[in-house]
């Protein structure tokens, strides 16, 4: 049986060794403990000793040559006597055990990578925005957009205090997105008791030639509320990003006015009091259901078609409470009865005025109706409320001269303008939708069922 003599590791740091001198030659007998060679290590010249008895059968590494630890340097053949009863495997030939890969390493790497991912994810936000972690969390919960806030902390850091102050002045903001215009009932006399409406998105501040704000002595500078900042930011974004175009149409409202009047008088004892807006919202919802191509949203590289119809209804807030507007949402408006839509709109409007809407009240609109008829506005355009693809601007229902069966007559007329996102909705689609709406409004039996 032969035993391989390998380059020993003679110090804790040794990786290679050089045979300086062989003390044995082929054919020499050696006994365990004999010095076979001098080996130069990284630290010193050391002795390579034999662990077994035997005869040197071969020298594999010449003097002066450096080899890795574990390299076979010589072969020892065991004499029979030593071999008998000693079945020692050539332990020297045992391949050096590979350093066990510490199991902790992958875990650590994993952690580091996970951290890196988190970091880069976090870094994709707004690098210029300095906001404390809890302020960021609170802003999200209260629907305050941190980008609209001026931080009072060091270096403009937005703190919890800043967010809470903004949230307090604009309780209603939350996650909702302001619409382009506020609604009102088409018929001023019976419109819901909503406060006057202002139209956002129209700059009224004097702007100097250089684009710099020129401030005069008698000007009053009032910091904007969080809601106002949200309105400003979202509508600028909408106007800048969405390729708007408008399609307008006039509606013969005689049938609808007559229907509403009849229903309200017949159902008064059931406390049913429908507004013109309720009827229009219901009609729009049905039109959406019949034209699903309109009930859609742009999503960068895809168009999302919504299965359900949720109608946003712009509601103005009283000026004495700071003004502004919110958009409560009537969910599944196409599947609700007129009475349900009416009650829901009334309840949400009251809630908005009294204590503010919750985020759920303002989530998920797929289309928005804005109505300025109460101010006698007969015609206007609205800015789309992202992620909607369209918004209907409803003017006042007014008595006007109309041509009916070739005869000049007096009839109730309403003009409505549909703003569309051209990325999603083409002109013909918009026209088809308006025609569906016209059909529903002018022949309103379908609205009832």
């Amino acid at each position: 049986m032969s035993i391989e003599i390998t380059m020993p590791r003679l110090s804790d740091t040794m990786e290679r060794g050089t045979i300086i001198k062989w003390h044995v030659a082929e054919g020499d007998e050696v006994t365990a403990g004999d010095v076979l060679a001098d080996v130069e290590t990284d630290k010193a010249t050391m002795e390579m000793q034999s662990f077994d008895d035997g005869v040197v059968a071969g020298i594999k590494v010449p003097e002066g040559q450096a080899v890795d630890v574990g390299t076979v340097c010589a072969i020892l053949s065991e004499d029979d006597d030593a071999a008998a009863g000693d079945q020692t495997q050539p332990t020297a030939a045992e391949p050096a055990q590979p350093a066990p890969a510490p199991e902790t390493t992958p875990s650590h790497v994993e952690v580091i990578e996970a951290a890196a991912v988190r970091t880069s994810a976090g870094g994709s936000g707004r690098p210029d925005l300095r906001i404390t972690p809890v302020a960021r969390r609170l802003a999200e919960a209260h629907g305050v957009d941190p980008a609209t806030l001026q931080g009072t902390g060091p270096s403009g850091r937005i703190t919890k205090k800043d967010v809470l102050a903004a949230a307090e002045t604009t309780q209603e903001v939350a996650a909702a997105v302001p619409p382009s215009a506020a609604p009102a009932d088409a018929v001023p006399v019976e419109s819901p008791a909503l406060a006057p409406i202002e139209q956002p998105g129209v700059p009224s501040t004097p702007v100097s030639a250089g684009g710099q704000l020129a401030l005069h002595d008698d000007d009053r500078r009032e910091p904007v509320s969080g809601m106002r900042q949200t309105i400003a930011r979202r509508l600028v974004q909408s106007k800048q990003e969405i390729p708007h175009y408008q399609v307008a149409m006039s509606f013969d409202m005689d049938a609808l006015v007559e229907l509403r009047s009849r229903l309200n008088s017949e159902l008064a004892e059931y406390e049913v009091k429908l507004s013109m807006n309720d009827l229009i919202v219901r009609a729009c919802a049905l039109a959406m259901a019949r034209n699903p191509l309109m009930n859609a949203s742009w999503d960068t590289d895809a168009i999302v078609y919504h299965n359900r119809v949720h109608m946003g209804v712009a509601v103005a807030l009283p000026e004495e409470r700071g003004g502004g507007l919110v958009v409560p949402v009537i969910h599944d408006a196409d599947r609700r009865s007129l009475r349900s839509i009416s009650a829901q709109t009334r309840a949400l409007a009251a809630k908005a005025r009294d204590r503010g809407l919750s985020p759920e009240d303002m989530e998920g609109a797929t289309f928005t109706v804005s109505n300025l008829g109460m101010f006698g506005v007969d015609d206007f355009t609205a800015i789309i409320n992202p992620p909607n693809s369209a918004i209907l601007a409803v003017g006042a229902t007014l008595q006007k001269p109309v041509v009916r069966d070739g005869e000049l007559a007096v009839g109730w007329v309403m003009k409505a303008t549909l703003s569309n996102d051209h990325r999603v909705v083409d002109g013909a689609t918009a026209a088809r939708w308006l025609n569906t709406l016209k059909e529903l409004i002018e022949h309103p039996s379908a609205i009832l069922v």
Partner: protein
Amino acid sequence: MTMAQNPTEPARDAESARNAGQSPGNERPPAPVADARGQQPAAPAPLTTTPDSAVLLKWLRDMMLIREFEVRSMQAYQNKLAGGFLHVYNGQEAVAVGCIGATQHHDPIVTAYRDHGHALARGMDPKVGMAELFGRIGGCAKGKGGSMHFFDANNHMYGGHGIVGAQTPLGAGLAFATKYRDEVIDERANDAVSLCFLGDGAINQGAFHEALNLAELLDLPVIFIIENNGYSMGTATARGTAGASDLRKKAVGYDMAACRIDGMDVLSVWRSMKPLVDWCRSESRPALVDMQCYRFKGHSMSDPRKYRTHDEEKHWEAEDPIGRLARQLVSAGAVSQDELKVMGKAVRSEIREAVDWAKASPEPPIEELYHDVYTDVWGPYTGTSLPEFMRRRASDREQR
């Protein structure tokens, strides 16, 4: 006021300092002495008897087993099966075997990092020792101690300790505990002696002197055995130790019994240690031993031994305690050459099995990393303080 006591006038040399210290001009009254004994007791005289040849043969086999274990340890180290530092016991086998042969099994022992021999002499299975060297779960410390930290509680072996001299107060503590257990808790006579092994390099550590002082003050039944192999690592004893000519002198200042023993002859070791152990047990007193021996190999595996000559090594190898006892037994007719060969083969076979067993033992599972830090398995490593990878494993296990 003498020169020696005046810090502004240091003594010119040691001689004058000694004279000054004994100067009759020092008129300070003697300090009150709590322990009025005030004398160094004499160590008991060595025995002249010889144990049965069966006992001697067992000692021979024990020494051969230690030698073979160390040879294969070195081989394993060179083959990278064993890592870290490796300090082998070749040449000093008679010390461990003779000293431990003079004790009872319940007598605690503790030593430094050159600890394989003591553990094996105390009865540790070479399999678990070898597995510890290989860093395997089957090791005596589950692969968490390594060569320098062999522990075997069942055999009353309280470690392998890596810091030079650190085990000497521990040795005093083992004796404190057995004495307290016997005398205070069980209310009976002291019935244990602790053996605390140390190298000659440890005697210059403060801990050694503090341990001797405490042991004598508190009458602790502990024997500090200086395995005086002539070198503190690579520094000859006299180069590192004042008063190296006779290490028994280290006990004088503590009024502690001391003796010198030829550590290359297991019979001598036993003959001196047996009465000393008995005396420490019955008197409940400590003692110091200057155990003269020789380390055949270097301090550790990376030691080229340039600080000593081949002639010196050859001289001591002729004193090999294994060969010495074997020759005595053969000449006394207690064993034949053939029987010795058979014994050698059996020992080689036992260690080979230990190597194979250790190789087959798995590496410790990664959970072991966090076991035994505290007595409760996870200790305070709960909730957030547990590293993520351990939390995952902990929850995986709970799910299983």
